[in-house]
């Protein structure tokens, strides 16, 4: 659906994108992840045809963005960073204008506009001036603008920035729903957002692609180590000798002592050994009561930091 081949973007001597290549298939929800200034917006602006790459090819829905930009642009719905809108239009006027710009068939226009207003939950504010509506609604208006014309591809640049938690969940739900019949690219520096919504993550830093993978695989890349956290009541203080009794246990470390006299330990085993069963059995034998036991999951957060730092080296 979208393909970037060796795309480079230079501003003078500054290299904003350095030989970026990736491919996004139809129906995928892809997260473009990177710290501020990594090149996320530049990438999106190039895909949408707002700016031109210095070299390389951008193919959108089978059309080369430089040669067949009109056809390519028709397939894209773009929600730019910072939700720029015409403040002196009403919500409905704005959506209508976008529909006209995107050359939506005149006969279907009215129906489509109402459909989008309903889909994005803008019924209550449709006749208000955009200037006078809240940030959350503005975000939705911008999203509505992107949805106009049934584009196959949606490109959303930081769609949840500046929203309160409730609005964020709402927008995310909406995006997830849209992902069912659109190819979506979302940029974000919020990782939890990406792992909740996206099926694929592209990590970018300093204009370079560092990783393209599923959120799960990225997490796995970091986990590598095999850790279990247990909270126990250990009246006879036998925890320190436990290491010898559990096969495959590498280290054991006291993390903290709680007020209720329970202690939390981190146990790290050798690779590919599931410690949980043995721990449970051995501790019971030793008269240690297990209050809580959990396997450590690496978060995408850790993966991200590790990959970015790896990239620096």
């Amino acid at each position, binding site marked *: 659906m979208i393909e970037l081949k060796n795309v480079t973007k230079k*501003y003078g001597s500054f290299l904003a994108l350095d030989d970026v290549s990736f491919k996004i298939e139809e129906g995928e929800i892809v997260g473009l992840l990177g710290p501020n200034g990594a090149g996320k917006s530049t990438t999106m*602006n190039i895909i*949408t*045809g*707002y*700016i*031109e790459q*210095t070299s390389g090819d951008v193919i959108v829905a089978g059309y080369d963005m430089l040669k067949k*930009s*009109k*056809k390519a*642009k*028709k397939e*894209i719905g*773009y929600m*730019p*960073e*910072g939700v*720029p*809108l*015409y*403040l*002196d*239009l009403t919500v409905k006027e704005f959506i209508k*204008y*976008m529909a*006209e*710009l*995107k*050359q939506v068939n005149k006969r279907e226009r009215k129906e489509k506009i109402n459909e989008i207003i309903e889909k994005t939950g803008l019924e209550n504010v449709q006749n208000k001036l955009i200037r006078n509506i809240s940030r959350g609604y503005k975000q939705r208006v911008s999203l509505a*603008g992107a949805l106009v014309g049934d584009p196959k591809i949606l490109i959303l640049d930081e769609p949840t920035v500046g929203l309160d938690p409730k609005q964020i969940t709402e927008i995310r739900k909406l995006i997830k729903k849209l992902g069912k019949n659109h190819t979506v690219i979302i940029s974000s520096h919020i990782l939890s957002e990406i792992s909740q919504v996206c099926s694929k993550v592209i990590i970018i830093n300093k204009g370079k692609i560092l990783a393209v993978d599923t959120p799960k695989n990225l997490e796995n890349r970091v986990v590598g180590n095999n850790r279990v956290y247990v909270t126990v009541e250990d009246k006879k203080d036998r925890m320190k000798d436990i290491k010898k009794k559990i096969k495959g246990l590498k280290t054991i470390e006291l993390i903290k002592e709680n007020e209720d006299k329970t202690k939390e330990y981190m146990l790290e085993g050798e690779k590919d050994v599931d410690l949980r069963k043995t721990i449970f059995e051995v501790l019971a034998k030793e008269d240690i009561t297990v209050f809580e036991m959990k396997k450590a999951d690496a978060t995408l957060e850790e993966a991200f930091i590790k990959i970015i730092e790896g990239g620096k080296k």
Partner: protein
Amino acid sequence: MGAIIKKEFKSYFLSPVGYVFIGLFLIMFSIFFYTDVIRYGSTNFEYIFFSGATILTFIVPVLTMRTFAEERKTGVEQLLLTSPTSITKIVLAKFIAAVLILLITELCTMMYFGILCFFGMPHIQTALVTLLGFFLLGMAYVSFGIFASSITENQIIAGVITLGFFILMWFLPDFNTIFSDFSLINIFTKFPQGQIDIADTITLISFTVMSLLLTIIFMQRRKSVR
């Protein structure tokens, strides 16, 4: 393209710009109507336009300064430039919308012609030629204003560039007569004398086309440096 023309035209009246432009023009024009025509008991409608043309110098920048600059600053140009509409059409649409305002203003001046008809018999042919010249001059001015607006994201700067350029064009012939053929306002003054000079008409039209072309080229180029 129709959508952009409609939206741009409407936005002139959503902000004070449209009203300020037409209002200021008519106030100034009325003053010249009195000082240049009524006071002499003359029925020469076209006389107002000698001074009337100078009004454009000051109010066209007001009309055109935000055309591209404002959208660039607020970022809404991203919506426009990522839509399947070509830059040429966008520039033309914005130009046409501004010219429509100019046309409305010019139509308003017809009422002065009406007043003169009440007192005597103004020369209709000369009046029409003058209006044509005035329209061509207005188009040339608007096209330059739009160009100035496309090169900066600060509308004040766009306005000042436009105003500065018009004033320069106005006074250049005073420094050297070589410039009198380049001074748009100088070129215009032949129209109120009732003659359509082909060379002058072509100069005004080609200036307009050139400004619009420069705007289009500039917008295209900005894609790769933005």
